[in-house]
């Protein structure tokens, strides 16, 4: 159980995340929605401790994550893997090494710096790549891959961390519709087959409804909506997106039509 209690993060005088309290049950697929600048990214980065909170606590299975430092903090970060909109791979390294960096918190510093990876870790990396149909690319440089392929490598890196939670920060915002489906399906499979809790920031309400069993809506750094997909009425969407609501809903309907067409084809 991941519990967020009164979490606030201020940048200067502006609060990016403001007094957020949430409980995330293990095995859930939670979508975080809201317009750009609503604090979704900061919330995920706070959980991974890439950003430190100004106030409040994050508690996971009885451990106060906000108090961790040093080795314990590194292990927490390994426990809540993160994937990013821009993938954040090391472009000049090959795919396999990129995935193996997901083991860094568990391998001795000497071995990892000299790149003397164990066979069991290589097997984990390949198994993760294999799950995402990326194993044949293991020897290629990461920056030679397309966006969708890079995001799948990033997911493989997250998987070899063997995390409890996977934090996905707009994972499909830079991808085309086909790769969007591949990536979202992969996340769903990871959630169902490996039981990893997923917290996913999304722009598209349609995708959020289709994939997430629970939605959290944010506006101005606050949680303004919690519920299931069908609770997300036009009225709520308007609250979340303000004047943009019409556009967002229209997009959502169009995308819905597209998905239906793809399904019938």
């Amino acid at each position, binding site marked *: 159980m991941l519990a967020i209690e009164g979490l606030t993060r201020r940048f200067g005088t502006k609060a990016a995340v403001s007094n957020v309290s949430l409980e995330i049950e293990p095995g859930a697929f939670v979508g975080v929605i809201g317009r750009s600048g609503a604090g979704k990214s900061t919330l995920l980065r706070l959980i991974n401790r890439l950003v430190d909170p100004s106030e409040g606590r994050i508690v996971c299975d009885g451990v106060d994550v906000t108090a961790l430092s040093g080795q314990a903090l590194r292990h927490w970060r390994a426990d809540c893997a993160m994937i990013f909109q821009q993938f954040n791979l090391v472009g000049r390294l090959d795919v396999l090494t990129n995935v193996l960096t997901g083991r860094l918190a568990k391998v001795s510093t000497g071995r990892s710096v000299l790149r003397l990876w164990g066979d069991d870790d290589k097997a*984990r990396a390949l*198994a993760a790549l*294999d799950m995402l149909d990326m*194993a044949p690319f293991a020897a290629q440089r990461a920056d030679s891959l397309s966006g969708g392929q890079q995001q799948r490598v990033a997911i493989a890196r997250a998987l070899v961390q*063997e995390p409890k939670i996977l934090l996905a920060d707009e994972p499909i915002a830079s991808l085309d519709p086909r790769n969007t489906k591949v990536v979202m399906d992969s996340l769903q499979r990871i959630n169902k*087959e*490996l039981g990893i809790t997923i917290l996913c920031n999304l722009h598209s309400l349609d995708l959020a409804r289709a994939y997430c069993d629970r939605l959290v809506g944010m506006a101005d750094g606050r949680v303004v909506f919690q519920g299931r997909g069908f609770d997300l009425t036009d009225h709520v969407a308007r609250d979340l997106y303000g004047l943009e609501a019409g556009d967002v809903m229209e997009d959502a309907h169009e995308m819905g039509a597209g998905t239906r067409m793809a399904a019938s084809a």
Partner: protein
Amino acid sequence: MTATTLRTLSAIAAQEAPRLRAAYPDVFRVDLKRRALTIGGIGLLVGLFALGLTMLETSWTRVFLGLGELGKFVVYMIPPDPGSWSKALVYLGALAETVAIAILGTVLAAILALPFGFLAARNVVPSWILRFLMRRSLDTIRSVDALIWALIWVNVVGLGPFAGVLAIMTSDFGTFGKLFSEAVEAADAKASEGIKSTGGSDLHQVRFGLLPQVLPLFASQVLYYIESNTRSATIIGIVGAGGIGLHLYEQIRTLEYQHVSFIIILVLAAVSLIDWVSSRLRFSVIGIRQT
């Protein structure tokens, strides 16, 4: 979604390992040849280093015995003392001249090198012949040290700070040309493509696509060289190209060690001051983004 069907990646990896090993043998094969080459290469370099030390007659006993002499110098130098106020003013004036030589020489070198930096860059000049000529001429200029250039310019324009400015300018023109062209080559092509897509000319692409990306880098390199050249300008002063170097040389020659330490402290203070100013300037040029 019952708990019994959940698996861990480790379990999957253990189960799939034989198949993955068979399908991707290269991943698991330890490349002994490559490892031997790496270790052999490091061994070779260490050997070469040791050989070099013996060939240059490195004598640790001489260093050890010399340490006593070094200690004596330090004792002679304390306390730093210019002798008289008038002498101190002379030294301060010479220091100002040195700093002026460094700043003028570096800035002139940077201005001259700016077009050449672009002309020697692969992504600006596709013709390899032109680029080759640019690079080799920059290499040639750079291969002659500022001290040698000072000797040459003293013969051409006579003794004095003007020769110093020219010496710094010529030697750093070569260095900046190389550094600038490398910065231009490392720049992101996306911005230039954006300018091209709007119908911009080649010059527009360089002006609006490349220059804004590389200018902060250029500025920080130039600022570093102003600091570094304050030290170089001290040295070229010794061969008569103006500045505080000549005084330093004179005082060492006449065994006035208290004067020497005073001059060294002056140079140290000037370099620290330039370093402090340039780091502030650099941050304002780079424009650290506020979060």
